[in-house]
């Protein structure tokens, strides 16, 4: 197994005080070569610190960082084969587009003519032609983004890092750039570590998602597994919407949740558990069985409806794609669970 980047028991503490709190509390993971790994988490969870430690902009308090099997823990950013795209793009305001893109080559001592031709190629690669002599301040947000991407790519880094690259773009452009980054990564089979707090962005681009919480890895896995089989309350809540209900795991492996019986996908120990249910996992049946609920709130969101039902399990939030059969307030229905979007998690 060859990892582009590997973390071994990394901790990080800011400040000199040895009794101070840890920002990263001992994490280990690997980013396989040629794949895109997303580090996802709420703000303050330590995900940016992790990225900056891969970059070499911060050094870990303890532990080891390996790149392609080599220990790089004490090396500075220039001595690692990485490059990074910053959230603010960090384009040098006193250099034009080509100078910005060619900067890294120039600093590595590449001859002048080659610097220019490779910079122009890189710009072509990200679809930015005809802006070579512009200053960064004369470009739109999306164009600046492409310049930053070209600047990071031109060095053909072993590992490419993205720090919330899409957060400064509007919704439409965001999807376009997201698809472009993924396409580029697969075409050039780049090893990428990608930090974001947006779970839908993470689901869309990743080969592997690492969810961090409070300086630790909460769970990691491929996108679909992360969404459908979260193993903790936190991950369930962070990877999209989920409601948690108390349940009781029985000796036969099934779980009782109020009047409903669930067969969990992975085996659970008998005793009290919690069941995380995605709002789209509820099936509404006007006169069916399951939990009886009375519609008390309803909002129309264009492509779907959001309903809230009053039931014995408390208020239940449901997303319904059914736009033809609209329920009026006060309707009594039966709610049952589909065989996706339901998972049993440990007690928090």
């Amino acid at each position, binding site marked *: 197994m060859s990892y582009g980047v590997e973390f071994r028991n990394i901790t990080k503490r800011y400040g000199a005080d040895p009794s101070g709190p840890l920002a990263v509390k001992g994490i280990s993971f690997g980013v396989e070569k040629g794949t895109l790994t997303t580090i996802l988490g709420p703000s303050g969870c330590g995900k940016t610190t992790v990225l900056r430690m891969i*970059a070499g902009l911060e050094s870990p308090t303890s532990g080891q960082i390996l790149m392609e099997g080599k220990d790089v823990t004490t090396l500075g950013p220039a001595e690692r084969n990485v490059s990074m795209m910053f959230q603010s793009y960090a384009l040098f305001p006193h250099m034009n587009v080509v100078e910005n893109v060619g900067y890294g080559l120039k600093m590595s001592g590449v001859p002048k003519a080659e610097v220019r031709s490779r910079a122009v190629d890189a710009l072509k690669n990200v679809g930015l032609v005809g802006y070579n002599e512009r200053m960064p301040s004369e470009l739109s947000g999306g164009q600046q983004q492409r310049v930053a991407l070209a600047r990071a790519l031109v*060095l053909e880094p072993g590992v490419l890092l993205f720090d919330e690259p899409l957060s400064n773009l509007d919704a439409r452009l965001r999807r376009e750039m997201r698809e472009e980054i993924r396409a580029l990564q697969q075409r050039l089979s780049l090893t990428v570590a990608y930090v974001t707090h947006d779970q839908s962005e993470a689901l869309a681009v990743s080969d592997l998602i690492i969810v961090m919480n409070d300086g630790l890895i909460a769970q990691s896995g491929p996108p679909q597994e992360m969404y459908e089989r979260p193993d903790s309350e936190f991950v369930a809540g962070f990877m999209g919407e989920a409601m948690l209900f108390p349940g009781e795991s029985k000796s036969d492996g099934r779980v009782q949740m109020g009047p409903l019986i669930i067969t969990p996908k992975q085996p659970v120990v008998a005793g009290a558990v919690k069941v995380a249910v995605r709002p789209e996992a509820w099936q509404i049946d006007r006169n069916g069985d399951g939990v009886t609920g009375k519609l008390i709130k309803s909002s129309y969101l264009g492509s779907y409806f959001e309903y809230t039902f009053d039931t014995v399990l408390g208020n239940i939030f449901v997303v319904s794609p059914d736009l033809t059969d609209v329920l009026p307030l006060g309707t009594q229905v039966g709610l049952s669970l589909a065989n996706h979007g339901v998972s049993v998690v440990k007690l928090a």
Partner: protein
Amino acid sequence: MNKNPNKAVRFWLVTGALAYLIIPWYAIQDTAWYSVLLQILGGAETANGVVQAFVNGRIWLLCGVLGLGIAAIGLAVPPGRPQSIWFLTGGLGGFAGLLGCGFLIGATGWSFDTFNAVFGELAVNQFGMGIGGFIALMSLLMISAFGLARLGYFKGDLFVASAVIGCSTLLAMFIAFPVVKALYSAFLDPEGHFALLAIFRRIGDERIWGLGCLADGVRCGVAWNTLFLALCVALGTTVLGTMMALLAERAAGPRVQTPLRVVALLPIITPPFVVGLGLILLFGRAGIVNQFLEYAFDIEPTRWFYGVLGVWIAQMFAFTPIAFMIMRGVVQGLAPSMEEAAQTLRADRKQTFFTITLPLLKPGLANAFLVGFIESIADFGNPIVVGGQFSVLSTDIFFAIVGAQYDQGRAASLAWILTLFALGVFALQHALLGKQQYTTVSGKGDSGIAMPLPDAVRRTLNAVVYPWLAFTMVVYLFAFIGGFVQTWGRDYTFTLVHFKTAFGLEWGQFGLVWAGTAWNSLFTTLKLAGISAPITAVVGLLIAYLLARTDFKGRGMFEFVALLAFAIPGTVLGVSYILAFNVPPVELTGTGLIIILCFMFRNLPVGVQAGTAAFKQLDKSLDEASLMLRASTAQTLFNVVLPLLKPALIAALIYSFARAMTTVSAVIFLVTAENELATTYIIGRVGNGDYGVALAYCTVLIILMSLIIAMIQYLVGERKLGRRKTGAAPTVLAVN
């Protein structure tokens, strides 16, 4: 990838070796080191390090060679942690050995009597360290820094490691060491033995602490004089400076902006005592006012102006502009939305002003007060020019050193009082403000519009500030005119004879002759200030960079020492230099180098401040992006940071140059006949009552400095940022 991780190490190893081989080791008396380059293989004084060690028997010099040798072994080890042991042992060992021997063995053998007793008299002595010794020490130090970096400190960055270690050593060597050594000498009795009570015998007398003035009008002690004057000046300049700043930013139209800017610039480019001279022409015994009184009312002219009143007024004129500049920056930094918020919460303009605007200015006020206080206690020019019988600590220290009494211990003891005053106010400021942060400037634009001042406030400001400005202009005008009249008070005919005396040019037998008496001092000043200014600016910005952008163990201590340089009055620094650097290993007294160093470390805080302010406006991700693109830290500094810091660089250059040209208090101890400076020359002329020449010289200085500043600005140029116009606020500098 970095192709050659050991490049820097190799460079310093070779430099260290060359320092032993091709340049003289010890300081050369009476001539420059480069003029004896041909005699480095012989001569007890001029030989290089290797010859000194083997031929002249100064065998201890070899510990540096040994250190370099050990460090060189590290090159054979793969780059990374294993190298650190070699670099550290070699570098630190060599450094400590060389420096230790420097302190232990002086011009008369062992420097300490105990060693004579234990090891017997030493046959060979050694002189002050010269260029060779200095460079060898520096190489060893840099190699130790690389060792630390390889160990994982400073994030493994060789450049940051060497910059931190280098700057700390400079600060320790040229600020902490001399000040501590000088202050320590206050505890030595006249025979040089340690006596804790010596300081009290020296300064515990009536002349310093007497309180006679409170009871029956007899003079008070010098310490009380200084404290009282400084408090009055700090208070006065803070109040006036704030008023000017509020007027300039909030009430004045575009027409008065230019005179305000000129007033703010004048004290930077003029020696501080010019105001004193101008005031003498107005209020002195032969001044206009006294003459008018005699003419109109037959009142006998007296020296009523000389004394505490005169010094206070002179310092008010000299230092108010500094408070003005500080407060102007603070007023500009107030977010108008705060005031708008207050007004929407039903406060009228007057209530808003007194409950929001003024309280937000508090940190600025404290800063202006501190700077005013330190300027006042360190000022030497004004007390000596208009002080008359009124003496303050800085003048007393001067007379203790250069006067007939020549009493180092007394000077050191007085320096203690001065330092304690300064540190006291410094500590008070920090205690009062604590960690309060009222920085209201953020990266986000504030779309609010500043509130116009309440009418009553505006009227008060108008009534105070405009007359003050007019008066300042009058004082400078008189100082200017004074250079063009025969004898002030008696003969007001126009003449250029003063300029001719000072700056006469003649055609002699061998061409142009610089016949004027002032040329020599002018050239010396220009040369020394010109050498020191770029170094000050660069080192200052480097320290600012380290403080703003890097994080390392001991950063707090580093910051503290850099800050401390603010609080040390120039007089104390000057005294420290003369007391600390007159014996080996650093023997500099009487040279131009000591003046350059003094300029440098006295003005360093200004460079640091200009840089720190600029770094706050520069997005950190720009330098990180450069680092990620495989640029080394040094390349990042040159290609990204420096071009974007041009305004700060210009500011630091101009300030350090101008202040080097105009400073008096620190260098007055260090000048010699061959290294006379412009300011000390002028003070000398004033001492002889030769006001015409003194004022003519001041005029020339002011014009010259304006030209040079314009030239620096033209040469360094504007930064190129494309079409975006950044409305960057002018960098605010607290001038100390």
